[in-house]
């Protein structure tokens, strides 16, 4: 019931209950309103979207409630200050401490991640509780009886601790579990979003495709993308590596020309001007093989040691007779050679009709 009204007002149901309890001290008025609302079956409305209340709205509601109490007091509907103030302070103090949207009081004390409003609310809650007890004791007897009163308060406190201690610790633990669960759910949502954008899209494309080659290329592309996402390619911070650049280039050419390119890398080197020339030449060789060789797949092998970088681009396609081939193929092989030579290396194209083609690029490592 209180939950229904809390949802309507957009405030925590703990505070709504506190308000009802406080109002009930005024000759059971709260109880009557509660019953009235219950008869109106307000709590049946559960599927409503609850918008979180803004802070100033909450203050407004609080001031409104205080005003209502003052109004009741001024028209004479008032049992006694002691009763209303004590019960009100205790009820709202408890509400502030047990609000479900808040971490438990114990958790708030020890958990550094609790934000400042949370701490503030806890302090207010404790303050109200102590204030309520103080008003209560001040109205019970003169100052010399403070000893027994304090004893009573202490006994009550111990009693509460014994009675609710396990509950409070469990609440704190539940909140910890809840927080972990929430983090897990966020991770799951992030993963779902990623899989949706990539894997599910690709699977849909594969289902709609009736070309086996295209299907397998889609699957291959998705596989490499997923691998990158799962394991990361772990580039060194701020340093571009030749191996990563070669793999990226192979991936791009593979997608453009629908021919799988297998990349094997041994060792590595940073990407600078001369190795960029090697990268460019290797890319041209891969494009060349993918476009012209007719081979089902192309291999790229890159090995780096202390003295030399070597790249082989190999296909087992139809090959060519270097004496006879004219036109753009020779042009490309010439441009590959020129590129590597300008960077201080050598390039060789070895091809035989029917035997495939292998482009070898060598670049000496210059001590930097």
């Amino acid at each position, binding site marked *: 019931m209180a939950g229904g009204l809390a949802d309507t007002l957009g405030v925590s149901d703990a505070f709504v209950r506190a308000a009802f309890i406080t109002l009930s001290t005024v000759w059971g008025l709260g109880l009557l309103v509660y019953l009235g609302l219950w008869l109106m079956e307000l709590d049946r409305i559960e599927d409503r979207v609850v918008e979180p209340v803004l802070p100033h709205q909450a203050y407004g509601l609080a001031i409104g409630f205080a005003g209502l109490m003052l109004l009741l007091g001024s028209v004479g509907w008032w049992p006694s200050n002691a009763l209303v103030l004590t019960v009100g302070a205790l009820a709202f103090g408890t509400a502030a401490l047990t609000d479900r949207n808040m971490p438990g009081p114990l958790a708030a004390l020890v958990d550094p991640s609790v934000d400042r409003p949370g701490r503030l609310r806890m302090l207010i809650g404790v303050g109200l509780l102590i204030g309520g007890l103080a008003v209560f004791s001040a109205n019970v007897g003169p100052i010399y009886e403070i000893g027994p009163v304090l004893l009573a308060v202490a006994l009550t406190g111990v009693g509460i601790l014994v009675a609710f201690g396990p509950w409070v610790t469990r609440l704190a633990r539940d909140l910890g579990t809840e927080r972990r669960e929430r983090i897990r759910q966020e991770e799951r949502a992030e993963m779902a979003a990623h899989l949706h954008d990539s894997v599910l899209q690709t699977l849909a494309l594969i289902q709609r495709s009736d070309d086996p080659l295209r299907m397998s290329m889609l699957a291959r592309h998705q*596989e490499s993308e997923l691998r990158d996402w799962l394991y990361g390619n*772990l580039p060194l911070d701020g340093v571009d590596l030749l191996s990563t650049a070669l793999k990226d280039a192979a991936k791009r050419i593979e997608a453009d020309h629908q021919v799988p390119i*297998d990349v094997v890398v041994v060792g590595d080197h940073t990407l600078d001007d001369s190795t960029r020339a090697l990268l460019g030449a290797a890319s041209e060789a891969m494009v060349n093989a993918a476009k012209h060789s007719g081979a089902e797949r192309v*291999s790229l092998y890159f090995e780096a040691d202390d003295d030399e970088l070597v790249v082989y681009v190999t296909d087992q396609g139809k090959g060519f007779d270097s004496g006879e081939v004219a036109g753009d193929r020779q042009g490309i092989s010439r441009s590959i050679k020129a590129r590597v030579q300008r960077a201080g290396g050598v390039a060789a194209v070895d091809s035989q009709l029917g035997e495939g083609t292998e482009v070898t690029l060598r670049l000496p490592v210059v001590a930097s």
Partner: protein
Amino acid sequence: MSARVYLVDDHRLFLAGVRAELSEEFTIVGSGYDVDTAIEEIRGFDPDVVLVDVHMPDGGGIAVVEGVLGTNPDVKFLALSVSDQAEDVIAMIRAGARGYVTKTIEPADLANAVRRIHAGDAVFSPRLAGFVLDAFAGAMPAEVDPELDQLTAREKDVLRLIARGFAYKQVARKLNISIKTVETHVSSVLRKLQLSNRHELARWASKRRIV
């Protein structure tokens, strides 16, 4: 006689696919979905070749290889995995697998690999060859057993050609040696990979996440 093959994979759909591909040429004696069943059945069937997935619950392919080789040392394992991470590859080979191929392998190549494993050879994919070259590269540790901790120049030549995508037959022709010699070199590299104490091997594999 065609090889008697047993399949281990917790992914049933993939298992069914491999079974269909291989059943024409080989006798599929059985298949297992989990580590314990697989070990028990392999001990019972004593197949020639076991195709084993790497990532499975309860210890994965490594548990199967180690569990079986203790009692049936003649069973030959070919690891088949979606993972091509160095850690997995090296760990499977060190556990006793005689080859490692990824699940993207063409059916004909897979059949060829099973045949080769059955004949007692090792199966190195281009990527595995690259891993081995990388793992054995670099400066030698102070205490080194050249017999186990170093690759010969010829072995490196063979591995490089495999890494460049050439089949054993082409490797043999390029180096002017027989296919049998190529197989001997690869088996010798496999032995070094399995027995070498080269401490870099483990460090390298864990450092090298994915290639």
